[in-house]
């Protein structure tokens, strides 16, 4: 009988990925709801201090694998080690945060158990004996309630679904060092790097004016630049605009770009795919302009204009100029 909740702690060379604490929060909550113990596991090499830090959280057990073959992340070694741990513990749930690393190996891990991952969930609800997981589909346009069929259920939660600062501390977890089997490792990693020092640091901007697919062509960006100047704000963009080369990549907001929380964020022609929202949802005031009233961006917007940005932007720039002229 599968029992308990297993949670994965991610790090880079011993530096904790703080979103792993969100997975601890999720596991602690689910554990309390279901009367299940929480066990966490860490894979790596020379990461004693991280293991010590994680053992201070309110979890029953910490499984710590210290192995040179796990020093750098590879999907082969991580999947092998995680498979050993899941087999030994036989948990009811394996809870992880939906990071790029987890996306790389979690499906491979689940496949070893003949199933897949209930991934990128935003919340869960208890319905009798069932746990119902909710996730976004169609790039955030709809939500889906999902039910898993067999233990262990592999589940990932979207970053931000639970709060890292709500992970509860405890009196010190029992640390165990399980023996894991690691087979052939086919991939050789080179050191991680940052492309170039980011020329523009959007995290310091007070006002950001961001454009998306709705801008239609590179020539139209000039119009938005004028608005940004009028407001004294920085220009930014969603991924497709940077992919097309219409704005440099250091102006990209979202999971693969910068994460910002300005005083005012104006989203022009951005539908609001999850990957974009995670980069800007904590902005104080969000203003969205989109011709599609159903666009997910309106779910998090404080102010919205349902309309054509090609009409709104010039009119807004003019109106701002008039107000400024009047107030000087």
């Amino acid at each position, binding site marked *: 009988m599968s029992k308990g909740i297993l949670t994965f702690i991610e790090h880079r060379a011993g530096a904790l990925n703080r979103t792993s604490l969100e997975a601890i929060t999720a596991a602690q909550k689910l554990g309390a709801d279901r009367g299940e113990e929480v066990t966490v596991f860490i894979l790596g090499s020379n990461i004693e201090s991280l293991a010590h830090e994680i053992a201070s959280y309110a979890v029953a057990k910490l499984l710590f694998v210290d192995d040179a073959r796990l020093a750098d992340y590879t*999907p082969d070694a991580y999947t092998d080690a995680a498979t050993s741990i899941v087999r030994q513990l036989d948990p009811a749930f394996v809870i992880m945060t939906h990071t*790029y690393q987890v*996306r*790389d190996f*979690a*499906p*491979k891990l689940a*496949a*070893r158990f003949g*199933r*897949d*991952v209930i*991934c*990128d969930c935003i919340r869960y609800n208890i319905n009798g004996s069932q746990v119902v997981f909710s*996730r*976004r589909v*169609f790039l*955030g346009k*709809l939500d*889906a309630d*999902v*039910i898993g*069929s*067999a233990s262990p*259920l592999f589940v990932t939660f979207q970053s931000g679904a639970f709060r890292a600062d709500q992970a509860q501390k405890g009196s010190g977890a029992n640390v165990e060092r399980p023996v894991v089997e690691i087979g052939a490792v*086919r*991939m*050789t*990693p080179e050191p*991680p*790097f940052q*492309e170039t020092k980011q020329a523009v640091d959007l995290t310091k901007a*007070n*006002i950001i004016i961001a454009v998306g*697919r709705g801008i239609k062509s590179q020539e139209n960006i000039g119009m938005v630049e004028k608005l940004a100047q009028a*407001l004294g704000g920085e220009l930014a963009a969603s*991924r497709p605009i*940077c*992919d097309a080369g219409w704005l440099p990549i250091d102006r990209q907001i979202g999971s693969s*770009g*910068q994460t910002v929380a300005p005083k*005012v964020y104006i989203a022009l022609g951005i539908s609001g795919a999850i990957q974009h929202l995670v980069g800007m949802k904590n902005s104080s005031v*969000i*203003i*969205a302009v989109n011709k*599609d009233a159903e666009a*997910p961006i*309106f*779910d998090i917007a404080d*102010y*919205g*204009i*349902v*309309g054509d940005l090609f*009409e*709104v932007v010039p009119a807004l720039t003019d*109106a701002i100029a*008039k107000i*400024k002229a009047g*107030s000087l």
Partner: protein
Amino acid sequence: MKIIVLIKQVANKDAILRINPQETWIKEDDISYETNESDGYALEEALRIKEKRGGEVVICTMGPPRVKSVIKDGLARGADRAIHISTRATGASATEEPLHFSPFQTATRLAEALRDENADLILSGLQSDDYGYGQTGVILAELMGFASATIVIEVDASVMDGLRVKRELESGWYQWYQMPLPALLTIQSGISQIRYATLKGIMAAKKREIKEIISTADTAGVTSGQTIARVYLPHKSKETKLLGRGDAKAGAAELAEKLHSDIRII
């Protein structure tokens, strides 16, 4: 090098989605479809690798008859041939709802259809724009014994006994990995500029082979790890003040006033 590209047909990005009466999925009959965005980039990357290393590019898609338009587009852009895996149960009528699979079920069917192809490389987009699982490729690699790398933003095909791939990490970090073949990569959107189909390509595509496979993998025999119980419109986390009542210019004037008197940035 023999490269297979997994391509999925998904609802058009601008499509207005309506939920079916059972609240289990969208109404699929009244929307337009397109090639999943990152899958289009996967095909482009495959064509570029073929230009450097030679070989063959085969596109593979699974789904009801409507997915033929995605195959035609891929062939017109330069793929050499195509495999279409039909997902309809034998004897099902054309109007019957297509079957829905969890990623493990999809990957199982793909593995069965592709095993005899003996591909060196399989490419897919990093996730579909409908279900958004981002798992089918990785699970397929595991089932076929291929090495895999996800969210790949550059491929260095000059390494003769394998590949060097650049993976995107979070917050502007990247990492190169060397890997042997056979391998499966999931490709990030924006890896390169996608070529358009030429008239010559469209004409040539008509002569290219489309292999039809009716999958015999028994869905009932492969348990689904997960089932969608219900789909619905997301609960709004904020109450949005809508400005202009549908009039864009009036909305702009109201917004300027809000920026001045309430938000106080002008």
